């Protein structure tokens, strides 16, 4: 009887030990699961942060490209006044001639300048005088999802205006050169 009791105790002890180790194992696995869930959360947050910072960086590049393109357009000899080294004066004759030349289908000008202004719209706007409203030099035929514009105040110059006394004067209007970049 005594022997049986001891066996029963021993079995109970082993069973308890097994249960205890199983419990420990389950506990470890649970900790690991929680750990990986937290890690996953961390990764998702990090991924989101990376995505938004990448979008910000792309936005910064896009803005930078727009400013660079606008700067280059302002200083293009094809449209700027010859005696204004600051890139803030547009010769209306040159602007109009270039516009007409670009609009000639299949011309060398159309090919060259559509490549130069790819993904852009370049236009001028007359802000004060009612002499004319403005004109579009070139508009790129691209499907865009996002655009940014850089506006530069400029003088729009007509070199063949005649004053009341019959002398030639440079008539100048206050306007804006709009350079829009598409993406």
């Amino acid at each position, binding site marked *: 009887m005594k022997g049986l009791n001891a066996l029963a105790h021993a079995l109970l002890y082993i069973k308890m030990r097994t249960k205890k180790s199983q419990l420990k194992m389950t506990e*470890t696995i649970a900790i690991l699961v929680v750990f990986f869930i937290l890690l996953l959360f961390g990764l998702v947050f990090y991924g989101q942060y990376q995505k938004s910072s990448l979008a910000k960086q792309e936005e910064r590049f896009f803005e*930078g490209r727009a400013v660079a393109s606008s700067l280059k357009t302002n200083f293009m*000899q094809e449209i700027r006044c010859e005696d204004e080294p600051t890139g803030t004066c547009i*010769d209306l004759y040159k602007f109009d001639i270039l516009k007409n*030349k670009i609009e000639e289908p299949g011309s060398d000008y159309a090919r060259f300048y559509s*490549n130069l202004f790819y993904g852009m719209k370049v236009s001028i706007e007359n802000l004060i005088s009612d002499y004319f409203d403005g004109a579009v030099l070139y508009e790129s035929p691209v499907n865009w999802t996002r655009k940014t514009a850089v506006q530069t105040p400029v003088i729009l110059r007509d070199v063949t205006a005649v004053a009341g006394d019959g002398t*030639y004067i440079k008539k100048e209007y206050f306007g804006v050169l709009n350079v829009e970049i598409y993406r």
Partner: protein
Amino acid sequence: MKKSQISIQFHWIFILIAGIIILGFFIGIALRQKTVSEKRLALDIKEKFNEIFAGAGVSESTAIEIAVPKVEIEFSCIGNVSRYILKDEGVSQDTVHDIIFAPDLVKSKSTIITWAMPWKMPFNVQNFLMITSPDVRYIFVYSYGGQGIAMDLMNATPDTITKEMYHVNDIENIFDKKNSRVRFVFLQIRPQMPADFKGVDDEVVSAVEIQPNRYVQFYKKEGNSFEMKSYPTDSFDIIEGDNVIVYAAIFAGDIEMYRCNMAKAYSRLSYVAGIYKERAQILKQKHIEIEGEYPVCSFYYVPDGFDELINGAKTQNKIMITGGARKIRNTNEGLERTCACPVIY
């Protein structure tokens, strides 16, 4: 072995595997993050260079020393395709419409130098952008007749570039200073190799020979001497008084870069000249209408020279370009002398 002992061993093996997995996971993320960061940094640098070059390109006749990170930039212009590559970052940028003259390799320790010069023929056509770094060494060598020209060129180039001037008799006193690139500029004399440079890598040393108002010739170091890289019929006639193309030759890495960029410049010249030609015709017509029987300004708007200039630009014929440009300049000067007539350019 007791069951408890097996359990303890299993426990440790389990911890080891889990540890390896977790460690591997974090190492993987760190490596990936490193690659992404490097790529983003490279793109960031490329965009910054785009902005720098755009800004520098419109700053006429201004030399700017720009602080940049330690970087190696390779410039090339082959055929009609020009680009620069940030060597270590592995990113490149095409410069389709920009006219850039630079050594094939610009190593920046902390700064690069940009210098934009307007190319006038006779009106402004486009700025030429010269790019170099203080690590590139320019050595002007002159003979008895060429000292004045050497001085003029030396003084006109930015003070920030590394430049020296030697008489040809002192050529053996020129010693290698381990620069990344060395450009010899020989004025009115055939290139000679200083003894100290004979052991330097061929790609490091190059030369141009300038014969003022006649031509420039490009040379590459091959062993112990300079070898001409253009043939006599292929030499570049210098347009009289046009110093900008002389500077372009000094800064251009090789003949290919010079030829390729000049082709772009001539192409642009033909377009800009076409606009000025039409503008002159419109001005003439306008003034005929305004002035009626007593022509004043309209008398001067002779579109002489434009066709010659445009055809010269299209065929890269320097004689025609020079002739056309001179006629246009004379017409413009006539208009300037006549009171208050709008000028051609």
